[in-house]
């Protein structure tokens, strides 16, 4: 059953959902992935699918929801009838709902839709990438190439809207494993993402860089704890934007009195060089979509506008309770999970300096290349980023000396004030998933320019 049929059918459920006078909506989702995973010992290939429907009604105070897996029209009708028994209450919470009539279908499948590429070619491509990666260095204990192809279909309907979106994604992750002279195992990885198959064309230079960097990681030492003058890569900048700032701007967190950001709206947190944004419409980025899971069309939110804390990221409920404008950030992990205010693609906006000039300003410091992840602290605005890999810089030149598994900490407003320069070079390289705490995972991306920052606390 195609998208059109499903759209029409879901629309027929609306009168059932709204029988009690509540607002109702329905979201169908289907996510299909093909994974090709090759290392020195084997090739493993698998397909996974998630499919289901989320039906909701809002009675003026709260959401009542049903989630059903697969597509079963009889079961959906029964569930819609059951939800329709909820009666509208006094309007304690007035949701701002998408009201402009819209019947639209959107697609982002890249220049070459991966569905048009035969499976054998995909496997051959991964095999070739693996062969080339392995050949770049004799020091690799193992090399692994993941190809992860995603196809996400969503249909949203309410009484004014019927919309669908189909988003493709091709993710390639190259991992190089090495061993230190003490016998410890380490690895380095790099990921590449875009909507279409064209992303799998990875230049030889990139493969060599993954392997060479891994060789250097094998020799990396521990960094003495301290404060350092640092040049943050776009990946690191993105983590800062996402973990240390973005989570604290999620409106449901603010609503619960859990976010320091509430004290800062309209106030200066950084110099005018600094703007931080979140937006689903960054083409080719991992957090891309056309509308959120509550039918709100994708828009960019400027969370920090030239140093001033500006707007939060919202879902319908938190926007209404806080009395702030809606943004397209209502997202759920799946049909059986709640919609929360979540990030999408989160980034510092580019500036006007150049990476070259910024590097030249470091007499004795570090380049922070990448990190494995981080954790939010919206209440305290503490910075918690782990697994940082750093490179020593002396007199404006990278020395090649690496430090491994560093933790980055500190107080966010202090770090933002310590930003000295913002590059015009810009990228959104993140390809991970974000949790609300340790649950409810959604795909996101993060990035930005290079940032020159003084007194970064590392240990």
């Amino acid at each position, binding site marked *: 059953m195609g998208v059109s049929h499903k759209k029409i059918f879901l629309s027929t459920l609306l009168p059932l959902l709204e029988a009690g006078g509540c607002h109702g909506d329905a979201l169908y989702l289907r996510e299909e992935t093909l994974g090709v995973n090759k290392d020195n010992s084997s090739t493993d290939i698998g*397909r996974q699918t998630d499919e289901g429907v989320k039906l909701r009604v809002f009675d003026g105070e709260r959401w009542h929801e049903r989630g059903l897996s697969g597509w079963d029209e009889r079961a959906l009708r029964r569930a819609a009838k059951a939800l329709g028994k909820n009666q509208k209450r006094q309007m304690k919470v007035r949701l701002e709902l998408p009201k402009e009539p819209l019947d639209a279908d959107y697609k982002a499948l890249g220049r070459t839709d991966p569905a048009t590429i035969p499976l054998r070619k995909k496997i051959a491509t991964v095999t070739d990438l693996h062969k080339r990666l392995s050949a770049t260095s004799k020091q690799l204990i193992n090399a692994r190439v993941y190809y992860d192809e995603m196809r996400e279909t969503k249909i949203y309907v309410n009484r004014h809207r019927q919309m669908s979106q189909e988003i493709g994604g091709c993710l390639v992750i190259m991992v190089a494993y090495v061993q230190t002279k003490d016998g*410890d195992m380490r690895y380095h990885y790099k990921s590449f993402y875009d909507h279409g198959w064209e992303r799998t064309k990875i230049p030889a230079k990139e493969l060599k860089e993954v392997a060479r960097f891994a060789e250097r990681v094998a020799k990396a030492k521990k960094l003495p*704890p301290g404060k350092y003058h640092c040049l943050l890569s776009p990946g690191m900048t993105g983590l800062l934007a996402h973990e240390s700032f973005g989570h604290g701007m999620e409106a449901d967190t603010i609503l619960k*009195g859990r976010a320091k950001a509430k004290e800062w709206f309209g106030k200066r947190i950084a110099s005018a060089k600094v703007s931080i944004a979140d937006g689903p419409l960054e083409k080719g980025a991992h957090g891309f979509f056309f509308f959120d899971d509550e039918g709100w069309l994708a828009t960019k939110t400027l969370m920090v506008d030239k140093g001033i804390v500006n707007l939060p990221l919202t879902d319908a409920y938190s926007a209404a309770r806080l009395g702030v404008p809606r943004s397209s950030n209502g997202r759920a992990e799946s049909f059986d999970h709640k919609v929360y205010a979540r990030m999408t693609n989160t980034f510092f906006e580019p500036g006007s300096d150049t990476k070259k000039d910024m590097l030249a300003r470091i007499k004795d410091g570090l380049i922070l290349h990448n990190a494995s992840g981080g954790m939010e602290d919206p209440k305290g605005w503490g910075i918690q980023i782990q697994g940082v890999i750093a490179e020593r810089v002396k007199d404006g030149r990278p020395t090649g000396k690496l430090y491994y*598994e560093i933790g980055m900490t500190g107080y966010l407003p202090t770090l933002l004030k310590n930003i000295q320069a913002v590059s015009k070079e810009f990228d959104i390289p993140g390809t991970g998933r974000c949790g609300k705490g340790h649950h409810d995972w959604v795909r996101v991306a993060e990035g930005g320019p290079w940032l020159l920052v003084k007194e970064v606390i590392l240990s």
Partner: protein
Amino acid sequence: MRLKNVFRTLAKLGLDAWSILYQEQEKNTLHLTNGEVETGIESVRTQAEVTVYHMYGKKMGDAKFTLFTDDETEIADKVKDALVIAGTAKKPAWPLPGKERYARIRVADPEIVAAFADGKNEVVTLKLWNALRRVAAKERRIALNHAELHLTRTKNTVMNSRGLKGQSEHTTLFVEIIIAARKNGIEQEFHHALTYGRLAEFDPHVFVKEAVQAARDVVAAEEWKGMQNKGIVLRGVALRDFWAPDLTQSPIVMHANAQAKHRHLSVFAQGRPVTRNKGFTLTSDPFVPYNPASGRFDNEGTPSRRIVLVDKGVCAGFVANQRFAHYVGVPPTGALGVIELALGEEDEAKLFDPGTVEIVSFSSFVPNSLSGDFSAEIRLGYKYTEKGKVPIRGVMFSGNVFRMLDAMRLSKESMTMERYKGPRTVRFDAGCHLAGF
């Protein structure tokens, strides 16, 4: 979707081998914001993960797909696609599990099962929420800003073409709250979340009291400055997260895994020391009653087995599914269970002295599973002084798990929580450090 229809369709297709993991999950979740219900969700998930195998001489190809329907045509199409995949990913063949006997483990709470069967699951979660709310309401100068309760019942059935059939039913209650405490105009919060296998284990009074005390300690905590590389003690959820982290594998477990061994990524070798510390014995135990990490079998139906991974400091075994057990030449163990650490011989009071730092909660503990390195912020800890214990926070705890084992001391007092069973207190005097700025 009916399992028997999926089974019949697969059986008709003349495949070399196949397996099905059929899952039926019912969930009721309640989401509270500032003490009010924001969202209540009832959901049902029924799905089957099918694996198809095809023989190519001594090699075997396999491929998985997911089903939400028992439609014969759709199944046949997916099998056809899976066979193409299997043909392109041949590997050395391994024996599939056959008819197996499974241990009896109590992991389904009759109370939760009945709640779902009678359609009273929402009533149960509301009742639990009201109990939490009442306890919190009696506390002064705190706010219960956030709460979530997830009640789940999952039935798994695994079958394969060799006649294997296994069934299990699990229940869980996940409770998460965030308590904010105020002192001298400053507000701090504490996040407290636990998963229980049965309702009887959940005491709202204890749960809230723990979180409230922790929140009060966080707001009173000093931001400790200095460096320390011994006398570091882990307890409570911090201890659990160290041995059985949530978001990644423990480095010990990762290296004690047959798949890592096969891939030449494990530094462990059977019979070789992992540490000089003969007090270190680590076991995977999938039979702890009502523990969310317990289970009768893995996704392929391989029976769960209790396995000693490290015995008195020496590598003794590997966690292995059927495939990697065959490749590496070890017994198949099924999935990882509860991480059990052998108890020590010391009273836990002896593990503390003036200058000891006790860590009870991390903001997030995510070690590098391969290298063993980690760096984690302490959400709440205590510095022991001659005058007593002083709460601290914001300190970075860094080190390498493997390098910490030699100088590790274990209490004889024990605790059991989700994913972990073992000493209630563990002290480290090497391989790690604290740094406060």
